Structures are given as structure tokens and as C-alpha cells.
């Protein structure tokens, strides 16, 4: 009887902990919606900031974020996928693999502001790309690289060995096997990684602060060498600079809401694809 009560006590504790965790998320979403919803309008999404950031819309920031994310994925996907294929399919069992694996997992725990400084030193200054989509995209690419590698590697390792065996036994080379059997089978998992990386890249402020983002820029970027506005940095700027905090705060919450919805949509897409993928293998 006593044991049963103890069990009951701890189970309740665990349940409450879980609920509190979920509550945080709900509170965040509630506040962002409550404070940001009034700012959202068609004009907010499609027009440029006016009156020193106190009115108008945030379309340059949306476009800028889009460009940065696209550049980040463009750079990180081929590199990350190649790295995952190397680690999972080709690599001999030696110390180089261990070094690469340790490198990848450590890269994942580097603080994002450090990536920002790295991007400033290497892309902006050393390579002379300046503050631009290119520099910011490359910096974000390094940030999401461990994500892409880890999810791709998981997706590749989830492909049953028997598929590889079947392909090789039919006379396919290892490369044909990877390209025509393993990669297509791993594609949904890889897509999940890409989508999650998009969400991550879209939301980061620190890596683009010194490498790509500016407080105000009128109109569209005309090349990848242009500096841009970006949603997360725009929020940061609205809350720390400017002369009219009351009006700016509302716009900042509007931006946060757009960002939140964007990331939420992408994440649920990732979950949807992953579930679909899982069900196609479980027989």
C-alpha cells in the first residue's frame, strides 16, 4: 500500500513537470499572438518601414530572411549531405572518421554568436565579401551544417542494409547503390533535416548581426553582395534602437509572430513528412 502511494506521488510529480514544460510553450505563443496580432495586416507584410521604423511594414525583412535562409541551405545541403554519405556509407573505420564525427558534434554546440564573429572575421573581412547575403548565408550554413549532417546520417542509417545488399547482388556498384537506392529511400528523412534547418536559420540573430543584417534598407536586395534586413535582427533592432519604443514594440511583436508562424509551419511540415516516411517502412 505504501509503495503504491509513493508511486502515485512520483507519477503525479512527473506529470506536473511535463505539463509545466508544455505550459511555457503555450504562454509564449499566447503572448506573441496577443501582442503581435494587432500589428499584422496586409500592409505590414507587403510594405516597407516608414517614419523611422514606427509605422509601415516589414517586407524587406521578410524578403531578407528568405534570401539568407535560401543561401544557407544552398551552401550547407551539398556539403552536409556529402559529409553524411561519407560518414555513413564510404568511411573506413579509422581515426579520421572519429575526428570528423567529433568535429560535427562539437560544431553543433558552438554558441551562435561565435559563428557571427567567425563570419565577420572570415567571410566579411578575410574573403572581403562585406556585410552581405553571401557572408550571412555562409555563416548560417556553417551553423546548420551539423543539423543537416546528423539528420541525413540518421536517415541513411535507417535505410535497411538489405536494400544495399539486394542492389549490390544485382551487380550495381556502391555508387549506383547509394545514388539509386539508398539516397531515394533516405530522402524524406533528409528533407526533414532541411526543413528543421530552415527553421533554425530563419530564427537566428547572432550569426547575421555582423555579417548580413542591417537596421534599415529600402527595397529589394539586388545581388547576393547586398546587405539585407532580416526578421530576427529587425526585432532586436526595434527593441534596442530608435526613438519611439511604444510603436516599435508592437511592430517587433508582429515580426515575432510572423517568425513564429513561419517556423511552426516548417516544423509541422517536417513532422508530417517524417511520419509518412516511417509508416512506409513499417510493415
Amino acid at each position, binding site marked *: 500500500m505504501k509503495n503504491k502511494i509513493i508511486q502515485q506521488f512520483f507519477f503525479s510529480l512527473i506529470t506536473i513537470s511535463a505539463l509545466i514544460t508544455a505550459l511555457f510553450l503555450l504562454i509564449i505563443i499566447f503572448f506573441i499572438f496577443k501582442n503581435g496580432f494587432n500589428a499584422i495586416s496586409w500592409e505590414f507584410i507587403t510594405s516597407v518601414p516608414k517614419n523611422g521604423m514606427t509605422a509601415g511594414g516589414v517586407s524587406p525583412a521578410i524578403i531578407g530572411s528568405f534570401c539568407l535562409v535560401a543561401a544557407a541551405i544552398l551552401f550547407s545541403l551539398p556539403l552536409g549531405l556529402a559529409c553524411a554519405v561519407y560518414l555513413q556509407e564510404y568511411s573506413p573505420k579509422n581515426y579520421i572518421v572519429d575526428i570528423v564525427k567529433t568535429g560535427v558534434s562539437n560544431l553543433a554546440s558552438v554558441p551562435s554568436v561565435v559563428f557571427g564573429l567567425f563570419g565577420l572575421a572570415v567571410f566579411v573581412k578575410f574573403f572581403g565579401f562585406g556585410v552581405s547575403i553571401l557572408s550571412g548565408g555562409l555563416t548560417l550554413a556553417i551553423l546548420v551544417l551539423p543539423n543537416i549532417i546528423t539528420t541525413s546520417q540518421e536517415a541513411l542509417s535507417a535505410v535497411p542494409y538489405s536494400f544495399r*545488399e*539486394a542492389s*549490390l547482388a*544485382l*551487380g550495381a556498384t556502391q555508387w549506383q547503390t547509394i545514388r539509386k537506392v539508398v539516397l*531515394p*529511400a533516405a530522402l524524406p528523412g533528409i528533407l526533414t533535416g532541411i526543413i528543421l534547418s530552415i527553421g533554425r536559420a530563419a530564427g537566428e540573430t547572432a550569426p547575421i548581426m555582423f555579417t548580413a543584417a542591417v537596421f534599415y534598407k529600402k527595397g529589394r536586395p539586388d545581388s547576393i553582395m547586398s546587405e539585407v534586413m532580416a526578421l530576427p535582427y529587425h526585432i532586436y533592432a526595434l527593441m534596442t534602437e530608435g526613438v519611439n519604443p511604444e510603436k516599435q514594440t508592437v511592430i517587433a511583436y508582429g515580426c515575432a509572430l510572423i517568425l513564429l508562424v513561419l517556423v511552426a509551419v516548417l516544423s509541422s511540415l517536417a513532422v508530417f513528412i517524417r511520419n509518412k516516411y516511417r509508416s512506409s517502412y513499417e510493415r
Partner: protein
Amino acid sequence: MSDEIKIKVSNLNFYYGKMQALKNINIDIMDKKITALIGPSGCGKSTLIRIFNRMCDLVIGAKAEGSVIFDGENILNSSIDIVKLRQKIGMVFQKPNPFPKTIFQNIAYGLEINGCKDKSFIKFKVEETLKKAALWEDVKDRLNDSALGLSGGQQQRLCIARALAVEAQVILFDEPCASLDPISTAKIEELILELQNNYAIIIVTHNMQQASRVSDYTAFMYLGDLIEFGSTNQIFTVPKNPKTEEYLSGKFG
């Protein structure tokens, strides 16, 4: 009745690193006959058939000595074209392993990786091999459905068809019915018996009844040695080696 030797194995030794998995194996595989390999787990029978299509290469530290003559060549030579070899010697695995593609694509795959682009030829081959594998009637209306939607037995027949499509001459079966129900097993056995008219067949099995039902020759292996090899009839009725008799009567294994 042909008595042509399809694969001649002489003095074959095989090692996984320091472990010797096969010890001085000598065996002749006859064309258009079914040879069963039996023996307790770990006796080397799966290793032996994986040498015939060089799938054993995939294991790190694997090393083979001796000769395995097929089509006038020693397939253990490093100069052998493994792609061609694996097309001529097809393999069906323990667990049905169709690709997560359509039924059509599963069979077309082997042709496409060899650079076959002739759509009508591929279509013809798909139909021909599915008929040979006794699967055509089951799937002819759903060739573009996923192969993963087929039953276990159907999947295994698809895997057989896939091996036939690349013009295999020898088909290796590695416990092909281990994961199938009795009805599917019966169908696969029926198919194997039919295929022997045109192919040399080697089947690894843990099922003694299966070996005696389908095979013409039986090889009993134990701890890497080939203990006894002869006609299935002789092995099952008057085994010469006491070990064979003990195994067949269930004293160990």
C-alpha cells in the same frame, strides 16, 4: 539430363580475419540441378554461397584461397568483373528485400544499372520474368504500386524475378523461406523446382524436409568443413558419415 558442372570449388579456404570460416572445401555444383547446403548455424554454408557472388567481399578482413571455377574463370581472382559475375549469379536473401520502389521499378532496376535504356525491352523483360516467377497473374494490374504492399511470399517471388531479369545462370537462395508461412513456402519451393530446368540452383536451408523435398544434391557442413556431399537420396537414407546421421536425426544442430 545434363551432368555439366556449373561451378567447381577446389581446395577453398576462407578467413574472416584470423578466424577460418571454411576449411578446404571441394564441391561441384551441377547445372540444372538443385544443391542444398545444410548444417547447424555457423557451419559456413551462408559464407560459401556468398563466395559464389563475391558478396563476402563486403566483410572487412575477408580472405579466400583456392579456386572457384565458373565459366572457365577463377572468380576469386581480383581481376574478375564483379558486376558481370553478380548478374550471372543472382541471389535471393533470407528476408524478402524488395526496394521501396514500384513492382515494375524493382525488376527494371537491374537492367537500368547496366545502361539498358530500351523502354520496350524493359517492359518485355518485366513481364517475362514476373511470369517465370509465377507472380504475373498476381500483380499485372498493379505494376506501378509499391512493392512493399505485397505479401511476404509475393515479395520473395519478386526478388527471384529481379534476379532472373539480369540473365542469371545460377541462383543462390539463402534460406529463402525462413520468414515465410507454410503456404508461401510451398509456392516458393514449387517455383524453385520449376526454375531448375533452366538454372543451377544452390539453396541454404535449416529445414531438413525442405532440403529433401527440393534438392538433387545435398552438402552437409559442420564447423567450416564439408562433411559429406552426395545425392540427396543417399544423404538422407544412407549417410556415410556418422556426423551427418547424427545431425539429420536431430542429435545436434
